């Protein structure tokens, strides 16, 4: 008896520790390593940075760390422009995702109940093919003699090939296409729970369907809108593959900058400081979200 209750309290103590353990091993430790590298100096060596960690000279190790790389980031406006451009592209993409995802999620929530689980499965289905392959497929669609041009000239809408590939538009198309499930699923989850009689009550009180949508449906779907937007915005800011494959050389994004510092210039410390910068940019919306959520729960226990 006693042993069992001991096991029970042990497992009760361990279960909440699981997420911390995971985050510790796969987030905190790598983060500390990256942070350390970002404070180091580049070196032509293996690994390509100094100083290396040694127990015998701890004081010397810490005194060799400095903020030079971050200063460099502020001096060259390339990083500032890349950051701004990333945030802009991610924000516009998130908006487009909302515009495309909301009607889809709304339609799914309104579908007959027996169809809904199938629809959810279909939304997730593209994940069965590798992300990279699906983005490559878009090159074939968007390139000047690609499927899109063929289709549009086939029905007589255009006479010249359209230039979409290697523009920002291609990046938007790629992000909207690739991230759509992350927008649709949280929206669907909140919309599905919504009580239809609330909309009827709004209509009954004289509100047109369009106004009822804005005064009832949208506010009640807000948790889903915020969750979906964050799930799309955050990875979109740091996106590398889509701008690299579809965006051409003109599209400036911080993720590409990080990649080129890391692999082309082999400047690991600078690349690490770009990574830290990216993290700082993304912490902000998460904090805002938590704040909004906490206030919402406060007023409505």
């Amino acid at each position, binding site marked *: 008896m006693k042993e069992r209750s001991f096991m029970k309290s042990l497992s009760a103590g361990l279960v909440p520790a699981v997420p911390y353990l995971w985050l510790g091993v796969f987030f905190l430790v790598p983060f500390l390593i990256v942070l350390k590298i970002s404070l180091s100096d580049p070196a032509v060596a293996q690994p390509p940075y100094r100083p290396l960690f040694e127990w015998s000279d701890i004081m010397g190790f810490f005194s060799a760390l400095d903020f030079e790389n971050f200063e460099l980031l502020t001096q060259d406006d390339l990083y500032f422009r890349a950051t701004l451009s990333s945030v802009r592209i991610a924000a516009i993409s998130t908006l487009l995702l909302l515009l495309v995802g909301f009607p889809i999620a709304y339609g799914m929530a309104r579908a007959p109940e027996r169809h809904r689980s199938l629809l959810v499965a279909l939304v997730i289905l593209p994940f069965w093919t590798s992300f990279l392959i699906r983005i490559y497929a878009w090159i074939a669609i968007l390139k000047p003699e690609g499927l899109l041009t063929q289709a549009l000239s086939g029905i007589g809408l255009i006479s010249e090939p359209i230039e979409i590939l290697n523009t920002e538009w291609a990046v938007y198309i790629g992000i909207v296409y690739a991230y759509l499930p992350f927008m649709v699923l949280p929206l669907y989850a909140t919309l599905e729970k919504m009580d239809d009689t609330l909309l009827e*009550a709004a*209509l009954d009180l004289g509100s047109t369907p369009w*106004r009822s949508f804005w005064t009832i449906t949208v*506010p009640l779907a807000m948790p889903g809108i915020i969750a979906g937007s964050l799930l799309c915005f955050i990875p979109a800011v740091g996106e590398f593959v889509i701008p690299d494959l579809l965006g051409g050389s003109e599209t400036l994004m911080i993720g590409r900058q990080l990649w080129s510092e890391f692999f082309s210039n082999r400047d690991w410390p600078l690349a690490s400081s770009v990574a830290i910068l990216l993290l700082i940019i993304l912490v902000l919306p998460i904090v805002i979200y938590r704040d909004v959520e906490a206030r919402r729960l406060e007023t*409505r226990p």
Partner: protein
Amino acid sequence: MRRTFAPWADPQAKPLIRVDNVTKRFGDAVAVDHLTLDIFEGEFFCLLGPSGCGKTTLMRMLAGFEYPTEGVITLAGQSLEGVPPYRRPVNMMFQSYALFPHMSVEKNIAFGLKQDGLPKPEIADRVGEMLRLVQLEKLAKRYPSQLSGGQRQRVALARALAKRPKVLLLDEPLGALDKKLREETQFELMDIQHELGMTFVVVTHDQEEAMTMADRIAVMDHGRIVQVADPGEIYEQPKTRFIAEFVGDVNILEGHVMGQENGLWRVKTASAETPLTIDDPDEVLHSGQAVAIAVRPEKMTIQREKPGPEAVNVLTGEVWDIGYLGDWTVYRIKLATGEILRVSRANVSRFVESPIDWDEQVYVTFEPGAAVILAE
């Protein structure tokens, strides 16, 4: 004052709502079946019927959430055909209340007024007035999740009343309240309706509630209306066996008509030795017709001594069960045929010498005017 209110008896009076031969089908299922109904201005009208008989569907057609498959509904002489809910001068209080969870009590009540584009101060005045009416002034800033069931019910009522609709539809308005609160709220609803002079259409499956509140009751069954009348008539002159059994308790004795004597019907039943004498002159019957005789429990008397030869309608049985309810005592009497009668007796005195006991042989009698004949 309410007594003289009977516009339905006036052939000149124009109804506020006219439901004209309306049918509503969902696929193959018929929810409302060729239903015709007039409701007059200022009426407290109850739709009463068992679950699934089509009450909510009829309400939803009045509110505009469903459209009739056949037939027309008119409001104040205007057809409601194709008129969406947000253009009808009708408001509904929902069975689930349907309060907006993201709005405070105030905002909920103000919602409908805002849609009309009333100026802000006027909205504030009207909201204050509604909060006073339902006695919720102190809770104006609360959210629905912070209210009790009874308080939510009041917010829903205030919200539906705020626009002063021509007709207020209430779908099972008291269904979610406990018994005591229900009874209090019934009277409050009546007071509010009287004070505002509004037309109320209330759906309920609770016959006591309908009897208490309504000017007129429409009893529904399988999508049809089986009787529309004031509560007294529904109770004392039910048209069918379904109504007699649905509204209040009743004893049913089956038999055959023997004929008419001095304006009274003589009916032969298996339950009584001599034919029963029933005073129900409006019925048109023929000899040999199978009928059911309905007698309410409180209209029967029970006694230990054999009644004299002048007594009519005597049934013999033994006491099967006694239920003491405080104000009433209900006896269940088993007849020789095996039928069980319910007889209730008001407890007018606190002490009874040698009360009737279990298993005793007793005589049950009723007056000719106490029974109604229901053609089968």
